[in-house]
């Protein structure tokens, strides 16, 4: 109830005796201005930037996340709040530190992000994706593997590989996603195929032709798209080993490759396992550590598995025996709930964007309540402050 004048003199707040407005107490807001960082290059993100937001320009967003990569709610919110900003969090900083110090002559290291659903794994992956793009690495990014397992838009038996299944539409989409993410870089690198691929009697891709030709063929001929993806991944692996490019593999929902069932059925109604997809085969081959000059970052999440397999968020449980043995050895990185600093930073961001408008929610008491009811869980907090 104490007011300060510009000269520093203290006044009592004028209290009206004759009106009800005396009851309206002034509400004090607390916003710190340290929740943003001007360091927009993820390559320079250090521990000092922990809990700070950095903004991603529209062009980069368009390049990296057009074909997916941001969770739907997050993407919509970023559009509402007029600009994509990502919080620099501990797991991403840890990863960036590792990647900066990696010896790329050694076999590729696998990193596994794990944590509860909604704790920010996908956002951390988006952050790493931006890092890879700035570091000049070729990005091999799968936005959300369960899309291929759970709701494939059309799964057909493979012509080339017996007893295997193709994803023609998904493969075309993925190739498009790959070329949007790496189009400029691929032009600069001028990578060439190392072997001849025969698709049919008339169609073939000769050795020494640019990789873009392979990609274009896949995008135009959906029938061969899946095999094009497999061929492309193999070529990238070879190119990386021969040090013509550096590859960053980012896969979200990696454990879906080892899911015990999928929505795809054979003619006799038996279920096709995800391990019987050509795409799975291609990406599992990419995530083996039999190549160099690259890095592999995957995330495992409970929501990528069927309902009954969501008890624990830990990698061993999520990957299962098969998946664990496939990835072993890897570096697990936990994505935890918000720390106190991160929580306040997030609230400051919402206040600054005028997303959190309820005056009482902006006070310390309001923050304490939000922190308690959301349990500092990022997704819960996002839903809690949303106006629906």
């Amino acid at each position, binding site marked *: 109830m104490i007011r300060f004048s510009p000269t520093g003199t203290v006044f*009592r707040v004028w*209290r009206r*005796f004759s009106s009800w407005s005396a009851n309206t107490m002034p509400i004090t807001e607390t916003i710190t201005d340290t929740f943003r960082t001007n360091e927009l290059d993820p390559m320079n993100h250090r521990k000092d930037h922990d809990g700070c937001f950095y903004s991603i320009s529209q062009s980069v967003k368009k390049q990296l996340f057009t074909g997916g990569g941001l969770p739907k709610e997050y993407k919509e919110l970023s559009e509402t709040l007029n600009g994509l900003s990502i919080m620099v969090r501990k797991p991403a900083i840890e990863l960036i530190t590792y990647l900066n110090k990696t010896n790329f002559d050694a076999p590729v290291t696998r990193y596994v992000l794990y944590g509860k659903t909604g704790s920010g794994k996908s956002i951390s992956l988006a952050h790493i994706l931006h890092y890879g793009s700035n570091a000049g690495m070729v990005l091999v990014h799968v936005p959300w593997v369960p899309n291929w397992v759970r709701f494939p838009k059309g799964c057909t038996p493979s012509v080339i590989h017996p007893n295997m299944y193709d994803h023609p539409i998904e493969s075309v989409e993925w190739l498009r996603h790959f070329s949007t993410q790496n189009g400029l870089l691929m032009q600069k690198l001028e990578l060439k195929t190392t072997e001849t691929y025969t698709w049919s009697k008339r169609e073939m891709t000769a050795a020494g032709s640019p990789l873009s030709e392979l990609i274009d063929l896949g995008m135009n001929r959906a029938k061969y798209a899946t095999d094009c993806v497999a061929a492309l991944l193999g070529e990238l692996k070879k190119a990386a080993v021969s040090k013509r490019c550096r590859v960053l593999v980012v896969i979200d929902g990696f454990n879906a490759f080892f899911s015990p069932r999928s929505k795809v059925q054979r003619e006799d109604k038996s279920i096709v396992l995800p391990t019987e997809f050509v795409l799975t085969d291609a990406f599992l081959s990419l995530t083996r550590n039999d190549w160099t000059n690259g890095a592999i970052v995957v995330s495992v999440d409970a929501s990528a598995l069927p309902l009954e397999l969501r008890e624990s968020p830990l990698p061993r449980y999520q990957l299962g025996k098969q998946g664990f043995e496939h990835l072993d050895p890897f570096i697990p990185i936990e994505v935890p709930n918000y720390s106190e600093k991160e929580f306040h930073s997030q609230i400051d961001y919402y206040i600054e964007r005028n997303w959190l408008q309820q005056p009482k929610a902006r006070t310390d008491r309001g923050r*304490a309540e939000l*922190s*308690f*009811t959301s349990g500092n*869980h990022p997704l*819960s907090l996002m839903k809690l402050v949303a106006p629906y």
Partner: protein
Amino acid sequence: MAVLRELVVFPSKCLRGVRSYFLSAPLFQNGFLKLNESVSKDGHALDLEQSDTKKISKAMKSYMERAKIHDNFIKQQLHEYNIGKRHLANMMGKDPEFFTQADVDEAIRYLFPSGLFDPRARPMMKHPDEIYPKRKAAEFDVNGRPYHSLFYTSKPNYYTLMHDLAVKFKQLDRHEDKIISRGIQDQKPTELFLFGSEWIPKQKVENVLLETLTDAQYENLIKTFERFSQHPYSALEKDFIMQFRRQLAAQVEIQQVPELMRDESGRPYMTYNTRRKTSNAAVKVIGQGTGVISINGNDIHFFQREQDKKQIIFPLQFSDMLGKVDVVATVDGCGTSAQSGAIRLGISMCLRSFVNAETIERMRLAGLLSFDPRTRERKKPGQAGAREKFTWKKR
């Protein structure tokens, strides 16, 4: 000369009641309301014939006539009361000189036994002062000039009270200014704690002021009082404010609050086991915490519904202990509402040991410390459910 002497003596001798009213203004001294409720009890020996009637205003004259009739009436009643008392004493075989009102009540109860429920409907014999309402004494002198500056408001006592409130409010403001100007900002203002009492109703206010009030006037008075009591330093005027408040239904004595216990690391803690419907909860509240909560090993997301989370947070928020204590709870049985309700009671009960008596009282009034005895009602034979009937069809 004789007439003149009479005139000089007259006011003090004959109109003591009127005089005393005049002397008691301003009404409120030392923060206490001093109300002039005296009818000139000693009886005005209003021998107006002796004085110069021309100098007395018509208003005074008519007042004196009315007062005389009233006084005579009261005198008669008092006389009858005293006679009746003596009769009763004789009937009961007691000494009439030392027969008190309590003895009268006892005698009436014995002689006129009544089965009527309401005590006010039973036979009684009371002092006339208790039975007949008090009247205002004259508010003007022999010339018809009012004593009170607010006489022409027609409700001088009411407006004096309002005026007084405004003056006191300004005094408190000045006090606050003084404290601020001396730079004693850390001295916490002492706002008045008004829980457990309410403003006295209109009827009571009218009895105190001896004036009838409109609803709007009463509302205005209460609003003003409320604003006054919300002043940060209103506790300084506690006695004044409390005159216009009455205690709510007898407050339950605060139960014995258990002493805090200490664990191996020296942190204070308190436990409480409780239930709601058929769910059982064991709650442990640990002091010096950071607001960590664990329910059956999970965090707050053990409960998925917003409502259940709010139940858990409510006692902590209400007692301002959010973020200061940790909670460990185990709960089983029944549904989520019952489970969260049980944990809420457990947390509230544990928190009693961490907060002061005032907060405990506030928590009690908010219903946080009472057990919810509601349970599922059984299904009845011949009915579809506890209350629901089968669909009735004529044929």
